[in-house]
């Protein structure tokens, strides 16, 4: 018996040295014998197997922790023991399956299995684990799982053969509960992680929008500078007209040149000003880039946001996409019509719900409103028309959002209500 114990213990300790890449010094070996192997034998002889093994696990862990100064030591001890039990069982199984009762074969099988598993563990698993940079909470969790698994293995080995039905059922019950709890824990961890990932993605979208908004602000600023610069010239011209008492010329100059300038430059900054009440960064970015787009296309656009809006009950990525598509459509339809105005309003309604209205003039009196939501139906030719179908697809996931699409007095109106 002593021989077997010695053999097994050495095997385990040796593997640990290998796994943790520690060069065993004489002192270390001495400590191993004194603190782990000897007490283990002692406990094994005079008390039960459980206490002995329990001691072995704890002592070996702390010993190797002191050698390596890393929490991985604990984990590796558990892994080695699990693999030992596993390989042992596998060897026994194969042996009995082929009804060859040779201890030599059994030992051989054991060694093959054990060694290959250890090598796999060392080369692949350990590398993966260290590259993952697990938080200490995760590491403790892994150790906890390992200990539980080991406990169950031993429970399996030492209890299940010899007990009566009642104890068997109780033990099984405990094993099952532990298993279920483990799964629940693992799943919840997974879910938390997924949520974190999604939060990060949303932050990225927000950042992108913010960036676009900043660009728009910079653009406005540049335009303001230009305006200030031109201002002096304008005043000089006005002065000329006044000195010459040229009222006609003055009138023309004023209406054609100055009011134009006012409409183009200050119009923009006025519009950006209306976005002030919209305290959702992502939407600010989207709307300001749409305003810029409209301005570039020389399409008049008004934005009505009379009251502060801090949130909408809809995923920000989705609402950005939906509004983007609807506003693009509105602008595109209006550009063709002279003197048209695209009107957008974001209005708070009862109980934190929001009404968003997009209104653009319509040219085609026979516009068929039934088919616009279908995939690839476009009044602009083939290979287009996926936008509104996408909108419908996105909104189907929201039981709290409704969309009205209608034509009234030659205007095409989209009313999006988010409750």
């Amino acid at each position: 018996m002593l021989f077997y114990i010695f053999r097994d213990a050495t095997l385990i300790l040796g593997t640990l040295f290998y796994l943790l890449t520690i060069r065993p010094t004489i002192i270390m070996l001495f400590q191993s014998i004194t603190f782990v192997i000897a007490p283990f034998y002692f406990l094994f002889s005079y008390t039960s197997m459980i206490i002995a093994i329990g001691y072995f696990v704890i002592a070996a862990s702390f010993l190797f922790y002191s050698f390596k100064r890393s929490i991985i030591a604990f984990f590796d001890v558990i892994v080695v023991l699990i693999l030992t039990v596993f390989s042992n069982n596998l060897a026994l199984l194969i042996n009995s399956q082929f009804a060859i009762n040779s201890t030599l074969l059994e030992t051989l099988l054991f060694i093959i299995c054990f060694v290959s598993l250890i090598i796999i563990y060392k080369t692949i698993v350990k590398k993966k684990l260290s590259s993952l940079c697990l938080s200490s909470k995760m590491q403790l969790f892994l150790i906890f799982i390992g200990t539980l698994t080991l406990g169950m293995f031993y429970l399996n080995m030492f209890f299940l053969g010899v007990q009566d039905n009642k104890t068997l059922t109780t033990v099984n019950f405990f094993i099952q509960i532990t298993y279920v709890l483990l799964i629940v824990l693992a799943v919840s961890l997974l879910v938390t992680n997924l949520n974190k990932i999604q939060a990060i993605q949303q932050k990225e979208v927000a950042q992108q929008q913010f960036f676009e908004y900043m660009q728009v602000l910079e653009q406005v600023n540049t335009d303001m500078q230009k305006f200030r610069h031109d201002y002096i010239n304008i005043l000089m011209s006005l002065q000329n007209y006044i000195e010459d008492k040229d009222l006609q010329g003055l009138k023309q100059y004023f209406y054609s040149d100055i009011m134009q300038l006012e409409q183009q430059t200050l119009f923009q900054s006025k519009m950006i000003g209306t976005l002030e009440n919209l305290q959702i960064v992502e939407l600010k970015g989207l709307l300001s880039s749409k305003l810029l787009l409209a301005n570039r296309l020389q399409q008049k656009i008004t934005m009505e946001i009379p009251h502060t809006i801090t949130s909408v009950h809809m995923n920000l990525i989705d609402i950005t996409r939906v509004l983007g598509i609807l506003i693009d459509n509105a602008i595109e339809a209006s550009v063709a019509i002279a003197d048209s105005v695209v009107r957008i309003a974001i209005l708070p309604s009862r109980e934190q719900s929001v009404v968003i209205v997009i209104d653009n003039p319509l040219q085609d009196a026979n516009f068929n409103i039934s088919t616009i939501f279908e995939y690839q139906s476009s009044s602009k030719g083939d290979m287009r028309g996926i936008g509104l179908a996408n909108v419908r697809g996105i909104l189907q996931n929201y039981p709290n959002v409704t969309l009205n699409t209608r034509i009234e007095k030659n205007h095409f109106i989209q009313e999006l209500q988010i409750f």
Partner: protein
Amino acid sequence: MKIVICEDDARQRKFLQSTIVHSFLFQFKDIEIVLIASNPSEVLAYLKEHRADCFLLDIELQHKINGLELANAIRSKDPLATIIFITTYSDKLKLTFTYKVAALDFIVKNEPNVAKNLIDTLHIAYQHHQNIHAQKIDVSFQVKIGEYTKIIPFHDIYYFATSPNAHKIELKEKSGVYEFFSNLTDIEQQLDDRFFRCHRGYIVNLQHIQKIDSTYRTITMKNGTICHYSFRYKKALMNALSSTSNNSFE
């Protein structure tokens, strides 16, 4: 139709009064201007004892109650009153007023065709008033959007359908599609005989049916969209169809 005017500038008041008198009061005997006020308090005081149908309000009133607040006060007393706003500035907040106060329209003072806009809008207000009076409201369906109630006459509705997810109903009519929260059973009670519940998820307007296909159990409406009917309603559907072709609704 009783009209109330609230405008603090005397010249504007005269202009409004003369426009209305000249364009309307000869044609329609039942339109009268019951109050010309110069500040909101007069209007509110008047409304304590009397009522009116149409209100022409200046938004930029130099008073502690501005036009918008006055409109809200009127709206709370009388949800069906027509409110028309008059403003000096451009119609920057047109949608806001439509959806938050359910204003009928916006007139901009300094635009060239103010008079024409005013008259057109008053025509619409008058029609609205006549509709309410003639209780034509009963042959229409109401959908609320923000504070604005859109009235859709039954005549224009093609069908109601349930939406794939929770409690949303889709209303398809001649000039648009609406979505709102309700259920078909409640809606059925508000409708009249020209509508038929042909499926658990559809109520169709019999007058707009183009053709029926028995193999696929589909109904094609006049605008091309397709509804379904279920087997157990088939007989009743056929009966209802033949009886409607004998009647005629407006």
